[in-house]
Every structure is written in C-alpha cells, then in structure tokens.
C-alpha cells in the first residue's frame, strides 16, 4: 500500500476550498447497447403522462415527480426486446442520472448510472446547475474528464435512485397498458 497525504495537516484540509466534482459514465445510447446487446436498432421515444395518469400513479403510492421521460426501445427485427428509460434524481449534494433497462415482461434487466455531479453549497437546487446534466461541462469549478479521483465520506445513500427505479417500473407498466409503449 502506498498512501501519500495531499496536505500536511487536517487543518489544512479543512481550510482548502471545496470543489465540485462530476463523472460521465455512459450516454443513454451506450447504456442501451450494454443492456440489450442483441438489439439491431433502438427507436427513440418519450413517455408523457397526463394529469389523470399521474394521479393513477399516485394512487399506487408512486409520486410522479416528472411527466416526461426519454426512452429507447430495443428492437431485433420486428420483435421488441425491451425499453431503456432515462431519469435523474437529486440527493443531498449530488445529482445522479441513470438508465433503467426493462424487459418485455416488465422485469428490471439492468440499472446503469449515466452521470454523477457532486456540488458544494446550495447550487444543486438551482436549475442552472441541474442543466449541467444535459450536455457537457460549462461551470468553471466543475472538473470532468481524465481526473479519476475517488470520493470518500459518510456512505452515500442511494435511496433516491432506488425510489426512482421503482417509479420508472410503474410508469413503464402504465405506458404499456395505455398503448404508448410497446
């Protein structure tokens, strides 16, 4: 084991400026290909729920949060293999976008994190910061790319991701019932 401290003291660590941090793992297309390697094409689409459908979801104990999701439909010839749905959730200091692959029978095939943004301060709640999810980096303090730094801290809970996955499974089931998804 080789361990080299960055600062000389913990006091120096505490006074160092905090920086934001971001990692892009996969695009939605790359995630879809990983989840459905047998697909010969992916059709783009969207799930849009109206007010009544959102209420139907809420009646099942699933909060709608958003009314629109980006979807890739995995196909092989005439057959539909499944769908991949993209979503994003906000944690205490982090924004996580992820994709859920769902088989034709409604079972979860795979979950992949697409990107991770960890902020300092309250800007995580600001729309401008959240827009960084789509598209590439623009904010100065954000480091993206070759830096492979690892973060340690009190264990990050991913409850909001698991809640989001549950929501997507319900949304896909609803969209299939009303015929807006194959």
């Amino acid at each position, binding site marked *: *084991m*080789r*361990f*080299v*401290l*960055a*600062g000389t003291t*913990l*006091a120096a*660590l*505490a*006074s*160092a*400026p*905090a*920086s*934001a*941090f971001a*990692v892009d*793992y*996969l695009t939605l297309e790359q995630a879809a290909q*990983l989840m459905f390697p047998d697909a010969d094409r992916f059709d783009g689409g969207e799930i849009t729920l109206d007010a009544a459908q959102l209420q139907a979801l809420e009646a099942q104990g699933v909060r709608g949060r958003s009314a629109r999701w980006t979807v890739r439909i995995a196909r092989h010839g005439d057959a539909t293999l499944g769908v991949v749905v993209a979503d994003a959730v906000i944690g*205490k*200091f982090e924004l*996580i976008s*992820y994709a859920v692959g769902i088989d034709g029978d409604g079972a979860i095939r795979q*979950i*992949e*994190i697409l990107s*991770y943004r*960890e*902020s*300092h*301060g309250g800007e*995580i709640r600001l729309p401008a910061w959240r827009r960084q999810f789509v598209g590439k980096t623009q904010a100065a303090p954000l480091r993206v790319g*070759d*830096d*492979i*730094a*690892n*973060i*340690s*801290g*009190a*264990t*990050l*809970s*991913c*409850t909001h*991701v*698991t809640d989001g*996955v549950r929501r997507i499974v319900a949304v896909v089931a609803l969209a299939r019932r009303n015929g807006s998804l194959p």
Partner: protein
Amino acid sequence: MSGGRAVVRRARPLLGTLVEIGATTIEGAPPRATSAAIDAAFARIFALQQRLSRFVAASDVGRFNAAPAGACIDVGSDARAVLGAAAALRDASDGAFDVTVGSGPRAWRLDARGLHKLADEVEIDLGGIAKGHAVDCAVATLEEHGVAAGWVNAGGDLRAFGDLAVPLELRDEESGGVRRFATIEDGAFATSRCPASHGASRHASVAAPRCLWADALTKVVVASGDASHPLLACFGARGWLHGPPRANG
C-alpha cells in the same frame, strides 16, 4: 491521473449506495473484454449482497436473524470470511467492533458446522464490514479477468489496485463538495460517520491494505474515538478523525 492509460468507468446502485468501478483497458484484448470484466465484478457484488444483506430474507444473515436461539445456520464462504474477521475484530477490540449492534455481541459463534445463534434477540448487521469485503472481491474478479490496474469504490469504501495512483477526495459532509486528501496506490480507504453525540459531523477514515479491514476499522476508530487505536497497526492500517470545516480535526 490515469497516466495516459485509458480507463473505463462504470457505476451502479448496489449495497445501498453507488458502486463505481474503474478499470484500465486490458492490453491486447478487444474493448468489450474490459467491459465484461466490469460486468463480472458488478455481478460478484450483487451475488454477495444477496447472501449477506439483512434486508434479503433468504440471505445467510436474514436466515440467522429469523432463526430461534439454538439454531445452526449453514452459511456460504462470503459469510464465513466476513464473520471470521468480525469475530477476530470483536475479540481484539474488547467488543468495540460489534456486528450485532448491541443485540448480543457474543451471542453468535462460527465454527465448521455453521453459524450458531445463542440467543433469540441477537441479530446480525454486516453493514460495517461487508461493503469492504465486497470491494475486495470485486477487485479480485477484475484481476482474474485480466485487468492490471483500477479501483472499486462502494460509496466511499474503496480500494485501488495495480500501479495506478488514485487521487482521493473527502466529501465535505456539512456543505457538500470535495477536498483533495491523498493519493492511494495498491491500498484501501474507508470513511464512517461518528454518531451525533460525538460532535457535529465528525468522521473516521482508515487506510489499510485491504478494504475489509479499512471498512471495519473505521468502526473501531468511531467507537473508541482514537484514530491511533493500537489495533490499526496490527492490520498495517492508519486512521484519522476529521472535524467539521475550520476546526482542528
């Protein structure tokens, strides 16, 4: 920095947190070989979670917790590895390390026959040690698949392997953001939160050769309040207690 070598990074929600795997691309193999190695490492962690999680009724731990006193539970090799380490740490730390979280530190015993439950009320929660073991297992899987260097980070319990110096950032638990703390090469690092009674946002971190020990020893540092607890040296480990920002941690 990755030293110019290509690194594939992926992340999935596992073990109740986000697990990130980074792998340098396997030389002389098609790109999908690295991706397949990462898939295999994630699959290893998922299988381990299904065997060790107290939230999974059919897991080794779930069956132990549901069983009456006097039961002997047949457990797999992962539970044996983790519980064996847990028993050693419990005894060496005078009970400061306790996978029963106070429900009966000595009311379980592991032997060749299995895991014995010695009291009705004892329940095991491997949350303080299994993540580290999962990271070690995922590293072994990556190496078996030919990955020469990389890392596995299970929500802050992490291990770097091979000749890759990985910069380590500590999360500011008060206001968010991260601060550069160290670089680690061929070793493990873990952080745990101290209970609120120990003061606002204090954290214990431990660096050790293996992540199981780093993960578990943070609990010893938290419980004892001693970042240089003598047990750390036994495992080639080093500990820190971090105060809130602007305090002299």
